[in-house]
């Protein structure tokens, strides 16, 4: 025990400080910083591919909507005065719109997105959609209720399904967006009425979409609303579940399509590399990879997909304006919070 002992940490501190100074001061042009809310198991391989193909080092901050995205979006907002991030890759348009509303994004028109339908893009080019998920009803095939399946989301408030339906907490993740879309399509009064009927029907509010999936897979509850990727993975893992698209008949409202969205951050430290990453994400290749890994449906026409991945051509989509719906979401959050908290 001597003075060398106390020197050790001081030397360590010095090394770290010098190291960090060097790495932060010599901002290599060959890097790009991306924050993403896409599950790391799906997003990381794609970012690695980009790194390999472009030679640009990708520095990522991961977070997942499953765990309710405490990190990424809050961090982007908190960092507003001194942005560290170039590209924000979100699992849904809502968060991009929140950022745009707070003036944290900048427009970018990518050539790659030319043939993506315009309703999947921000009119002012702040965000662009690609590979989409859809909202589905996941149900347990081994339970007796499976003999009569609901066809419409409105069936979920019927007495046959009392205490048999789960939904994730609508204050978080894609469920919020689903609720906003309902408000957009139905108007506020009808939407609130429907939600109240769900509550009266004893709907179970789970902590996340993944939790809905888990509860249905374990047979704790018969069915629930979740995203295609959750349903797809549950099925792939051999759980006794299947899923269906609701409201597919003529005159019905259709099912919600949720595209991935990518946006360029205002004041991005590496804007050019950011744009290259955005181009890469919006490419047909990326859509093909996401179709394969997590059953996301390509928005480009004619991208090859595995057989069990549904095509957007075969689905009746809910007709909404994504930008307006996302704005609406911010407004209805108070209503949703009261709904969740009501007995």
């Amino acid at each position, binding site marked *: *025990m*001597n*003075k060398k002992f106390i020197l*050790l*940490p001081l030397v*360590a*501190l010095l090394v*770290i*400080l010098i*190291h*960090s*100074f060097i*790495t*932060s*001061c010599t901002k290599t042009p060959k890097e790009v*910083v*991306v*924050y993403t809310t896409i*599950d*790391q*198991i*799906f997003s990381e391989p794609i970012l690695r591919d980009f790194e390999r193909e472009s030679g640009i*080092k990708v*520095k*990522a*901050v*991961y*977070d*997942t*909507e*499953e*765990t*309710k*995205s*405490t*990190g990424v*979006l*809050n*961090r982007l*907002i*908190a*960092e507003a*005065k*001194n942005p*560290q*991030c170039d590209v924000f890759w979100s699992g849904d348009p809502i968060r991009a719109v929140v950022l745009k509303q707070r003036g944290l994004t900048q427009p970018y028109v990518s050539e790659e997105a030319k043939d993506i339908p315009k309703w999947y893009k921000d009119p002012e080019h702040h965000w662009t959609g690609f590979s989409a998920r859809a909202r589905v009803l996941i149900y347990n095939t081994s339970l007796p209720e499976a003999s009569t399946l609901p066809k419409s989301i409105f069936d979920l408030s019927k007495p046959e399904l009392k205490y048999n339906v789960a939904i994730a907490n609508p204050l*978080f993740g894609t469920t*919020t967006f689903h609720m906003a879309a309902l408000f957009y399509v139905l108007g506020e009064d009808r939407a609130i009425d429907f939600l109240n009927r769900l509550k009266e029907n004893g709907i179970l509010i*789970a*902590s996340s979409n*993944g939790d809905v999936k888990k509860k249905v897979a*374990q047979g*704790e509850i018969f069915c629930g609303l979740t995203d295609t*990727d959750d349903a797809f*993975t549950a099925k792939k*893992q051999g759980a006794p579940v299947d899923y269906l698209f609701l409201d597919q008949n003529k005159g019905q409202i259709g099912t919600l399509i949720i595209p991935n969205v990518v946006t360029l951050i205002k004041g991005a430290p590496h804007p050019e590399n950011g744009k290259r990453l955005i181009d890469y994400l919006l490419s047909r290749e990326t859509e093909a990879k996401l179709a394969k890994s*997590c059953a996301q449906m390509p928005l480009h026409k004619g991208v090859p997909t595995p057989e069990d991945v549904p095509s957007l051509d075969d689905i009746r989509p809910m007709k909404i304006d994504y930008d307006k719906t996302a704005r609406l979401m911010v407004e209805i*959050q108070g209503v949703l*919070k009261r709904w969740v*908290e009501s007995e």
Partner: protein
Amino acid sequence: MKRFIYFLTTLLFLFIAVVPTLFTLFSSVIQLRGWGGIFSMTNLTLLGKSIAMSSVTAFLSTLIGLLLALILERTFSERKNWIKLLLIAPFFFSPYILGVAWSDFFHMLGTGERFIYSPWGVIFVWTMIFAPLSMLVISSQLANIGPNMEESALLCAPYQSVIIKITIPLLRPAILSSFVLVFIMTISEFSVPAFLSVRVFSTEIFTQFSAFHNFSEAVAQGWIIISVAITLLFLERSYLTDAPFISVKTDASKGARPIISRPISTLFHGIAYGSIFWMSVIPVLVLVFQAFKGGLSAMNQAIHVLAPTMINSLFYAAIGALFLVLFGLVFAFMSEEDHLRWVNLVLLVTFSIPSMIFGMSLIYFFNRPFLTPIYSSLVIIIFAYIGRFTFITGRLIANSLKQIPTPIKEAAIMAGAPPWTILFRIIIPLIAPGVFAAFLIAFILNLGELGTTIMVYPPGTSLMPIKVYTIMANAPQSTTSAMTLVVLVVILSSTGALFLMRSILAKYSEERCCG
């Protein structure tokens, strides 16, 4: 020189932990449209519910901890430390994982699901997590109570009255600190109630934060939690500034082991082993079952995913622990040698800052162009560790210092040793076990820290707990459970390695001094 070091350390700590949080408080107060929303009826009701739930948890966990500590210190001898180690195993998991494991356990049992998805379920899970901590806090003080006090009382009263009238009153500081620690740690814990769909004050902050992105409201609510903690501290300040919280015994054990009849001792041993089974074995079994249900593939995947993060995590946890020990040492000296009592209060208050809010404060304060070298490097992670856990290392070391009798130092003064020599040749060697324990606990806490680091970790770096958390989503339960087990093994084996290193070091220094 001494004053300079005190000044510098305090300044650094203020810069790392206190100023960022105060800065965030004031900016949130300025931006807040009105405090009406904060003090609304719903909020106050929720706060009341949170306080009630945390109090019940703190009470139960202290009670169980007290019982286990009494059993361990007074009826066990040689296997005591092993049992302690097994009992604190749940502490190596994140509360979220344990919440999931317990709810899965009740699902497998096919009953009790209504119970687990209720406030009582949250209290149950919290108690399972924090009772081991209470046990540790109480047993460390119990071990320091000499046998004569109990033995002299035994001459005139039966054992149970001795426990109630002598032992427990002597343990009052430890019982209080256990209560306060558990209360503070649960009142800002949100992952368990969020997972079990129970609304409490901390989940409300979380909602303001992640659903509404209403930072000023969230921060203001966070300060309510801090003020509740401060009030609690204020009520018991005279005890708490001297309370042990956690301590490690410096001397060889002299604890009393009164002779009790065989059936009772068997019963007590049964309770101890039963608790290990309940608190540690069941959750681990659930995880093992889930991880290996589908063969080895989940485990392979977990190792594959976590392997690249391990070196990084261990390295930063170790560096962080080193700094935590340094800060802890200086603060311990300030509070014990120079009787600067405010040090303990400042550390305890920073400890009560909810991790999310501390993370937010670090971003607001350090993310500026001229501080970028700190913010965009791993220094910020070390800062996060320091802000979160200096209280723990400070207390551990202070309690070791407290155990050194004054004449031991005065004898060195009489011999003519200058202060630095006394420090390095007398005091530090004597508190070495406490310093080692502080390093170890800081290391383990760093390895598991999630709440703050997930908000500030530099892009492109990967740390084990964060990776577990981000991979967990949409990964099958088997992978999540497997990852948790991998983390447990990493923590246990690195702990083992540290113990080994210590014994080698001790041997080496012994040879050097006497060879």
